């Protein structure tokens, strides 16, 4: 069965069997299969890295590193977790490393939140709403900016569980698999992350309750 016959499309659930065929072809050095694998997961990787780092340019760099690492380590992928879970884990680790790299160099990098909020530069927002009025669009962007700023003030661990849960829609067990921690740890981190962000977004939260 050729890769072209595998019903794989970005955004669709990939069956384990199809995934195994794809991984096997990648291991044998089939560039077309690897291109398919990247195309299937790049949206998820870029979005997660962008939300963890707050910088679309950095997110794109991280995404490239993630797939290079995935390619090099496909031989070690045992298939116990899904490929998607494994790629989530590599993305979180790469983003964490990138964050620490900046911190070690005491580089006060001005986070280009404007680009992230407005979908400029290396980023594009997938669900911009052309039917929204300019006023609504401005409010939406301002809200997104404040939420992203609040996320970036959380610790990396808290930010990660919150983004995986609320943005990527993973369950606590799935997050535990990604982070290789106990589900209880995920739940306690999630509770503290929500509590911290509630404190950061006081005005927005009250507005949201109305």
């Amino acid at each position, binding site marked *: 069965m050729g890769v072209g016959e595998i019903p794989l499309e970005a955004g669709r659930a990939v069956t384990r069997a199809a995934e195994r065929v794809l991984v096997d072809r990648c*291991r*044998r*050095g*089939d*560039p077309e299969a*690897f*291109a398919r694998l*990247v*195309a299937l997961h*790049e*949206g998820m*990787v*870029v*979005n997660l890295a*962008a*939300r963890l780092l707050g910088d*679309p340019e950095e*997110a*794109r760099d991280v*995404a*490239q590193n993630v*797939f*290079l690492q995935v*390619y*090099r380590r*496909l*031989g070690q992928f045992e298939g116990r977790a899904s490929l998607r879970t494994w790629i989530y884990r590599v993305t979180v680790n790469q983003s964490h490393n990138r964050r620490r790299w900046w911190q070690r160099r005491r580089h006060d990098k001005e986070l280009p939140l404007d680009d992230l909020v407005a*979908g400029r*530069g*290396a*980023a*594009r*927002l*997938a*669900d*911009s709403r052309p039917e929204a009025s300019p006023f609504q669009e401005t409010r939406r962007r301002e*809200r*997104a900016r404040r*939420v*992203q700023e609040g*996320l970036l003030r959380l610790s990396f661990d808290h930010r990660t569980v*919150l*983004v995986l*849960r*609320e*943005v990527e829609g993973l369950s*606590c067990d799935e997050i535990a698999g990604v982070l290789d921690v106990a589900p209880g740890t995920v*739940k306690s981190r*999630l*509770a503290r992350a*929500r*509590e911290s*962000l*509630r404190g950061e*977004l006081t005005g*927005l*939260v*009250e507005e*949201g*309750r109305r």
Partner: protein
Amino acid sequence: MRCAAARRRLSEWLDGDLRPSEAGAVFAHVEACPACARVAGELRAVAALVSELPRVEAVDSVAQAVLTGLEVETRGPGLGFLFRRKGAARPFMVASLVPAALVLATVLAAALALDSDGSPRASGGHDRWPALSASGTENNPLFPSAEVGMPLENDAGRPAADAFLSGPGEGALFLETVVARDGTVARVTVLGGDAAGTQPLLDALRRQTFEPVRYRGRPVAVSVYRLISRHEVLAGPTIAGS
């Protein structure tokens, strides 16, 4: 259930991760406690705000950039070879070896086509590509360079050249003279200029002799290029007076 205990479980309660008995106790407390109900509403709003963040996509295809990176990494040995894990797959290796193999085959074929003394081997019936004469022969002369000296000419052609230069009119001739391995002139070719009336000059140049040129111990034929210009000089008007 007290407020502190309820608050510790609010997050899990909102996610539906509590056992039914615990979930029921938290629900009852929240129904009865306006402060905890407010906190629960705010936590729900926090989750909604984060989940409403628009998804970010890369403008340019990450796949293309990654594949390009892999291609560069696997194109050839280079320094990257020293750092690559043993047994790592190299998907573009075979494809990238094809041009390298073609270049290698061409170089080997060229090397095999020449004998050590410069004479051609049989070309195996490739009639469309006539065998090129060995370098340094009259049909494939060398060019003067740092290793191949310029041939020193004798005086045989000089009178004819002087006669041409002193003749009437203006003009320039660009000539190639092939000096044979024995120092005689193998041929003279007019590469540019008006060849009319230059036959005596060409005949005289063909009779020239040179000191034979040697390259790596063996006599070789050499091409010499010459530009011969003739200018008519007119006397200016005589200045009278003074």
